[in-house]
């Protein structure tokens, strides 16, 4: 599903590579944690998958496509197959829960009937039934992140990328979010989650990829966060 072949990324005006000769592959339906200190290259890794950045060297395949050969006008179609969740939720403050989730489908031109059918399903899936018309500021952090997850998943992407989705949420609420992500993973969606949250990684017992200074220092199935942090 995601295949990195000897990928490097050097940002201009920087000496050190953000990623250096990274090779790995994440299969369809896998759940992988991306761990490592700040600046270790986790975000660059996620941005490369979205083709928000271009690698300085190496090849990247996502959903069977060679990103180097993907023309710019086809990038939106790639992104429709990838859902994204961020630490800061990125909800639209002037739209309610339903509208926030529906927005993701409206802007890719889905018919209204389809939107009316699937949006409530996904909102229920993330556990926000009955809160369709709440505005983001009326929700707790955990609930806002659930809306963001619903928005990322509403188009049934093949891959879900999560960049520290529990970074702004207390541990108890984080468990709820992780349950939602796990549920999404069980539908066959590949989930890649960058995190600093050791407790979550240890409790989930999923694949753990550890980056340090842009290199993979550990790639472990059913791993734990590690002792050094």
């Amino acid at each position, binding site marked *: 599903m995601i295949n990195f072949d000897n990928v490097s990324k050097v940002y201009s005006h920087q000496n050190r590579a953000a990623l250096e000769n990274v090779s790995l592959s994440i299969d369809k339906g896998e759940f992988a944690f991306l761990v490592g200190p700040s600046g270790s290259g986790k975000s660059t890794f996620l941005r490369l998958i979205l083709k928000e950045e271009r690698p300085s060297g190496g090849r990247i395949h996502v959903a069977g496509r060679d990103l180097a050969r993907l023309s710019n006008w086809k990038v939106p179609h790639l992104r429709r197959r990838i859902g994204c969740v961020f630490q800061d939720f990125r909800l639209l403050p002037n739209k309610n829960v339903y509208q926030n989730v529906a927005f993701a489908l409206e802007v*890719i031109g889905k018919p209204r009937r389809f939107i009316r059918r699937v949006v409530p399903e996904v909102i229920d899936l993330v556990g926000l039934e009955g809160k369709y018309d709440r505005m983001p500021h009326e929700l707790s952090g955990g609930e806002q992140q659930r809306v963001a997850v619903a928005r990322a998943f509403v188009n049934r992407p093949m891959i879900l990328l999560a960049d520290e989705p529990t970074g702004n949420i207390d541990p108890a609420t984080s468990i709820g979010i992780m349950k939602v992500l796990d549920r999404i993973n069980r539908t066959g969606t590949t989930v890649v989650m960058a995190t600093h949250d050791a407790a979550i990684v240890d409790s989930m017992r999923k694949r753990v990829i550890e980056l340090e200074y842009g290199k993979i220092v550990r790639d472990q199935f059913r791993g734990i966060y590690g002792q050094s942090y």
Partner: protein
Amino acid sequence: MRSNFVLQEIWIGLRRNLTMTVALIVVVAISLSLLGTGLLFYQQVNNTRTYWQSKVEISVYLCTANSPNHSCHGAASQAQIAHIRQTLDSMPQVESSTFQSQAKAYALFKQYFANDQSYLNTVTRNEMPPSFEVKLKDPARDYNVVASAVTGAPGVDSVIDEETILNKFYQLLGALRNAVIIVALILIIAAIMLVANTIRLSAFNRRRETGIMRLVGASNLYIQLPFLLEGVIAGLIGWVLASFLLVGVKSLLLNNLQQYFSYNVGLSTTDLVEVIVLAMLVGVVLCGVTSFVTLRRYLRI
């Protein structure tokens, strides 16, 4: 593509920076109407020129009994008149020449100044010079040849080319046109900067929305179209205002000018429509292209 979604986005964008939008519309309206006015003046000069070109004549005024001109020694004799007629008619450049007697000149004079008794009272029939009205085949080229052939001939008082009189009028309109177009161009530059700024502000205001649109895979067209149309719609509203102003310019200013100079070459409705359509193209292209170029810079895809 869901049109109501795009329309909604445009409406939000236009409403959010209302002051900028209003400023943009006003500047576009004024610059387009000035540009259109310049074009109307241009058309007016052209129409008048073609109209007169076919009619322009050289007037050869003959001496009267009391002409102040030194080359005149009493009224032109019949022999002199016949000689002048012969000179003119033998020239290949002359299409036709007609003799206008004092009686006919006086009759025309009375007709022109029918409602100005003081003129009629001071000028007598004998003071009106008889003349040859000469029609040229190619006025622009042959004027000098014909004029010099008769200038100074016995019995000739003066030779007047009507085009020199008309040229003053053309110059006036031409100068007005140039002034108006220069101001229009300056305003168009201002309009371009305003469009760029409005779109930039709009893109900044909605960076959250566009960021999410990018993320969930909205096509570039879907992301950019509302901004592009926002600029174009503001331009169109400005154009509609400019059209009204242009209709006013034509019916008030140019038509009055025409009456003042007592000639009868008006601008047709087609001329006005042409100018208005041209103004629309300028407005739409100006706003559309500027929006597009600005978007390339400020809306990362």
